[in-house]
């Protein structure tokens, strides 16, 4: 059974707030699911890497540049933020 501390640790990593009841339920659910994953220990090693990747798959890259957007687009996107000022999204201080 995964411990309460471990659940709280993972929740912190995920930046997720869980109530005490949620932590308890999460312990139960996660334990059952993680136990099920033990099945994978039986799986053999694969013979080759990426055997079944058709020729059409390749890396698609683009130039590392920022593209100017229409003012209306910028307005729409910034408009969705809960806190904004002068065309910037406002965020609380990190430190």
């Amino acid at each position: 059974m995964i411990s309460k501390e471990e659940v709280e640790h993972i929740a912190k990593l995920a930046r997720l707030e869980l109530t005490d009841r949620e932590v308890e339920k999460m312990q139960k659910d996660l334990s059952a699911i993680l136990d099920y994953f033990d099945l994978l220990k039986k799986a053999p090693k694969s013979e080759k890497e990426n055997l079944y990747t058709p020729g059409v798959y390749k890396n698609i890259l683009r130039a590392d540049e920022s593209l100017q957007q229409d003012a209306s687009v910028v307005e729409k996107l910034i408009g969705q933020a809960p806190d904004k000022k002068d065309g910037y999204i406002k965020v609380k201080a990190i430190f």
Partner: protein
Amino acid sequence: MFEIASSDCCPSRNDEERMDLTELTIKQAHEGLKNGEFTSVDLTKAFLAKIKAEDKDINAFLSVTEKLALEMAEAADEKIKSGKFGMLCGIPCAIKDAIMVEGQKCTAASKILENYVAPYDATVIKKLKEQGVVILGKTNLDEFAMGGSGENSAFGVTKNPHDKTRVAGGSSSGSAASVAANMAIFSLGSDTGGSIRLPSSFCGTVGLKPTYGAVSRYGLIAFGSSLDQIGPIAKNIEDAKIVFNAIKGNDAKDATSADLKDSEDSNSKFQISNLRIGVPKEYFALQRGSGQVKGIDVEVEKIIRNAIKKAEDAGAEIVEISLPSVEFALACYYIIAPCEASANLARFDGVRYGLSIQDGDLLDVYLKSKGHGFGAEVKRRIMIGTYALSSGYYDAYYKKAQEVRQLIKQDFAKAFEKVDLIFCPVSPVPAIKIGERTDDPLSMYLMDIYTVSVNLAGLPGLSMPAGKVGDLPVGLQIIGKHFEENKILSIGEEMEKLLK
């Protein structure tokens, strides 16, 4: 814009004729529009009336885009008058609420996006708009596409139109139910581990999960980026084919979309009598009560075996194949998908959009926005994913799952050396009762046993109606090689005739 009261719809037609309009397929509707029997506005009003009358009992729609629909219908009618229009012009459809339609809410059935308005069209929507479709509304789903029943929606479960005490299946619950209940002629869903095929099986619709890369994911709220695909849900194979052809294709905005030239596949003729059909022996060997994997329902197996027999009688060679990695497929999927989801859902943090709880410091904003905004299943999957990627566990879980994914791909590659298509079940059971599996997440995951390996291998998979257990539809799954959707759809059409 005038109010739509049901008596206003198609005033020249009586009630009975109006109801018939909602039963039309794409092809039938197209003929009617072409011949001037009715207009797209007539068609649209008929569907809007149907939704108004029936959706309160089904809950397929999260939002009905009435104003947009009528505007699109009027524009379509102009195109139709000009004489130059395609099969989808003027055809009313429904869109899963994880796919962006500009100016309309896109909630992913989550409280965290309850008031989020899409700032742009998904590529598939852009393509459908170019065809002149009519968008009736956004359909219900499991929150962030995570679920197999539809019960994980923050806005209520979608009922199965065949039996309203049962689920429509998930995660594209509303998309399948809307088509099954004649509240849309076709719909778009998305499939990460079975989310088009499973609700299609439960609701008796045709549902196609395209090959990974065949359809652009730009504008689909991401869940598992190496697994997600958008696909059509329709009343028959022909309709599914029409929609698939309209939405497929390379997209510069989706780096994972495939660059296909017209393959041999699209022009070839396929016949069941020339076919070798693979039947995976492990898919039927899982007996009820043995170990943790529940076996296939006896009645469901009968229906699938019957469909296979019909194909054999029509001349197909039935070949028993082995997919031994099916034993690991579910564990593999339920590690990889949550891992990818934990990364994809990190963006919902109350900073740029969505629910934002501004108490306390920055960490509090994250903790509380996510704590209040995400539902239980989403939290569960984020936790699984975070755990499996975390230091100390990465090798045992995520890395191992990726290795097992290669095994699954190899199993299919080996099988497709001997056969042309694979026939198998979609789900081990027909539609479950609402509430039946909600207390036991693992039991819910087990419904995906036949669908997840297809996403892991990136293959195309179809669900088509093959029979019923009582009132409950059961789907046959047809799996093909990468980019062989046309083969699957052609054989599916032959199967439709054989199964009539």
